[in-house]
């Protein structure tokens, strides 16, 4: 660890011992969330999500193409994340690195495995299906990119319209076939405390990270543990509980932004 992160680490650890966080939040308190949809007119669907100072923009593009050989009757979903150097002095231009691949894959799993998009309904005819591209663009990095990216992806999906007219496959564009989404909540651990919705400094000194996606009925739909530290069983249970509680609040914000 270089000098500045270790100073931050000491500072945040000392605060944590007094039960405090640098920005005055409680350990299980989320930052303010703002969602704005339909921000990119060229995209089939788009959303900008702010969590505190973190800003993420997601755009959905669609195309007609061939399905995967092992699932000839389902549409295709691909997720890509770009950590563009605009968002942070530490991001570099170039091909996606491990961090952006992990970010894209965690978001992808949250959307795919929980069956938010009914891919089977995206089959147009044998060997011809809709392809959905979810492109995640990080604009301003102030921690907790996982939650911001998944929330923006959901908001963009829920406001997207299949461009049937442009591909001459129908008279009118229509919404994607979607089900109730799971909501992701991320916590990190440092110096023995677990905090929800890490800020950038907390992200940088974190020893372990856990993202939990929970659905409307409070069941777990996807999880990802990251970094080299470890969690105890009790900590994991606490994280899941916090994720369910906050997930409910976030779901309300999401529903409001997509006009539900």
């Amino acid at each position: 660890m270089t000098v500045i992160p270790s100073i931050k680490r000491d500072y945040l650890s000392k605060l944590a011992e007094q039960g405090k966080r640098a920005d005055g939040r409680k350990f299980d308190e989320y930052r303010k969330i703002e969602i704005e949809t339909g921000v990119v007119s060229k995209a089939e669907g788009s959303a900008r999500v702010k969590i505190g100072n973190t800003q993420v923009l997601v755009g959905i593009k669609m195309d007609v193409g061939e399905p995967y050989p092992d699932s000839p009757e389902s549409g295709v979903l691909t997720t890509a994340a770009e950590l563009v150097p605009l968002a942070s002095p530490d991001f570099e231009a170039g091909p996606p690195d491990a961090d952006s691949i992990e970010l894209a894959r965690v978001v992808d799993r949250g959307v795919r495995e929980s069956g938010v998009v009914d891919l089977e309904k995206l089959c147009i005819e044998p060997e011809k299906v809709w392809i959905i591209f979810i492109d995640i663009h990080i604009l301003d990095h102030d921690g907790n990119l996982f939650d911001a990216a998944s929330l923006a992806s959901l908001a963009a999906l829920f406001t997207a319209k299949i461009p049937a007219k442009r591909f001459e496959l129908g008279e009118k564009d229509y919404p994607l076939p979607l089900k109730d989404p799971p909501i992701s909540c991320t916590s990190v651990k440092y110096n023995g405390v677990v905090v929800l919705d890490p800020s950038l400094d907390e992200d940088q000194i974190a020893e372990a990270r856990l993202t939990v996606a929970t659905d409307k009925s409070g069941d777990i739909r996807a999880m990802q543990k990251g970094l080299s530290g470890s969690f105890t069983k009790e900590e994991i249970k606490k994280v899941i509980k916090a994720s369910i509680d906050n997930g409910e609040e976030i779901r309300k914000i999401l529903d409001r932004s997509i006009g539900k």
Partner: protein
Amino acid sequence: MKSDIKLIDSHGKRLDGRKPDELRKIKIEAGVLHRADGSCYLEWGGNKVLAAVYGPREAIPKHTQNPLKAIVNARYNMAAFSVEDRKRPGPDRRSREISKVISEALEKIVLTEKFPRAAIDVNIEVLDAEAGTRCAGLTAAGVALADAGIPMRDIPVACAAGKIDGQVVLDLGKEEDNFGDADLPVAISPRTGEILLLQMDGHLTLKEFDKALDMATNGCNIVSDLQKKAIMDKYKSVLEVE
């Protein structure tokens, strides 16, 4: 590319109802990103562009450093969802060229000799594209540089002129760019009128070129006022808070 589309109607109005010497609607906001040293969000017609400046900071890798002055690295990037058919993420030949000409235009205006061995990184992200993104990008970069407090001789600004249906017009829109006869993006230093960037494709006579260049320069001057207003607006509110 020729087509039957009529770009100017019998009343001299263009497809989007503009007069020949009228700009699209422009909105500029300075200081929109938290992490960057300076930033700008700009809407120009259907274009939406973000620019962020980092630096001056140590140039990495080391062999890119210049012992006498700073280097200016502009990076123009289009979001995958910014165009009709999804663009593959990452730089292609077009965006590399645009990055290069914008870097060179900015290098002329920044007081690079004040920061030997440093790099000033200017990141331009095109979020929504509709003809004239390089002008929008350079204009946003100018505001972001000012917002970052980078010493400059002037605030650079860009605007395009072109020719449609045989007539010289200001600031081409989407169809005008696709089906028009010529496009001439120009960046200037508004204080001195020096030309920092100039590209052209299509077909212009000498006379038409003169007219188009004058028109583009006038456009630049109008946009320049908007840039200054955006910067004033940001710092005015800071002053009031304090």
